């Protein structure tokens, strides 16, 4: 048998046009975000450090300073942003041109899987149950892509993306956006948090993200350590805010002013 031509050597037009379909998906996201001044991923390698809490209050502070702000809750399996932004459930106005995101406290617009799921229900997909781990991650990435590409934000100064713990969603985000987003990192003071967040920050650096700085949350009592300062020194970035257990609006306003 003669050598068989390789995939890349077969260049006839294909009716399926799968690469073109993928390209169209990417263009849809790019076009949707073209009116967004900047996209900031709020992330941490550690769970329970208050990423969503920080995201919501930072968004409100930015909105109070007359900036148009949106929050995309990228924690598809544990979404909390609507509750933090005081958004009651109401059907999302939907047309061919996109989904209208509701506005919450201080006028912050947001979208979240919590708005789409039955109360208390987990995010579940139709499909074969056996070995669902093979396709579930791809399905969640598709959901993230659609939340990025199909929500009619309009013109925004800042879109904050509230990421779940770990790195998976961040990596998906980089692939979907085509360029790594700027990153705001949240940690608590403990060395355990520092070690986990360090891994996330390294991954972000390796992907090419701009590290905006660190927010050290839950400071002042209960947690011992210097994670914020340690990470700031290691990555040559500022500690943008230290958030006590009962922060006042001026603390959030100061954080917003530094971004």
């Amino acid at each position, binding site marked *: 048998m003669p050598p068989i031509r390789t995939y890349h050597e077969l260049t006839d037009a294909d009716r*399926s046009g799968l690469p073109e*379909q993928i390209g169209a998906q990417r263009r849809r996201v790019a076009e949707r975000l073209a009116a967004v001044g900047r996209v900031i991923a709020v992330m941490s390698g550690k769970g329970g450090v208050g990423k969503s809490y920080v995201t919501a209050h930072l968004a409100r502070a930015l909105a109070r300073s007359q900036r148009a702000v949106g929050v995309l809750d990228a924690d598809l399996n544990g979404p909390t942003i609507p509750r933090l932004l005081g958004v009651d459930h109401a059907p999302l106005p939907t047309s061919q041109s996109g989904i209208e995101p509701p506005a919450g406290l201080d006028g912050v617009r947001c979208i979240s899987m919590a708005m789409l*799921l039955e109360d208390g229900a987990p995010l579940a997909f139709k499909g074969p149950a056996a070995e669902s781990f093979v396709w579930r991650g791809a399905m969640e990435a598709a959901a993230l892509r659609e939340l990025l590409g199909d929500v009619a934000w309009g013109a925004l100064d800042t879109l904050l993306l509230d990421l779940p713990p770990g790195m998976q969603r961040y990596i998906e985000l980089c692939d979907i956006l085509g360029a790594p987003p700027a990153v705001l990192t949240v940690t608590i003071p403990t060395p355990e948090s520092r070690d986990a967040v360090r891994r996330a920050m390294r991954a972000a650096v390796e992907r090419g993200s701009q590290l905006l700085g660190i927010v050290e949350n839950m400071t002042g009592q209960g947690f011992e350590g210097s994670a914020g300062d340690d990470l700031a020194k290691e990555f040559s970035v500022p500690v943008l805010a230290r958030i006590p257990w009962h922060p006042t609006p001026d603390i959030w306003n100061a954080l917003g002013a530094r971004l």
Partner: protein
Amino acid sequence: MKFLCVDCDKQMAFEERQLPGDGTLAATFKCPKCGRVVAMLTNPMETQLVSSLGVEIGGRTVPAQPLETVRKMVSTGRDDAFDDGASGVGRGALWSPEATERLSRVPSFVRGMVKRIYADYAKEHGIVEITPAVMDTARAELGLEGM
């Protein structure tokens, strides 16, 4: 994924897609030189992987809908998640009682999107009333298996 007719050294062309409803997929490809046809059969997991990419084998027949994959694939969606009123029954073609009843059996999470697709089809084809027969024709022409 591409198919090559080894005898002819020709790239085979997509012919037809079928979704029999058991989670599997069949897609046929034909050699443009010798006419040989082969079928690619995927198991449910492989079919699911294709779905998760949000692409259509054989090409798109309708424009991408907002949150299309989410609406088609999430099984725990709330009934009143979306307000598709802007493209509802009142727009364009009328819906016969039988078609309305059939549409009501579509899960509400995805119903508005399905309604919009049928309404757009009717508008494009100058159809004044959507009936079950129109829905069948549209579904076949547009490849809307499962809608």
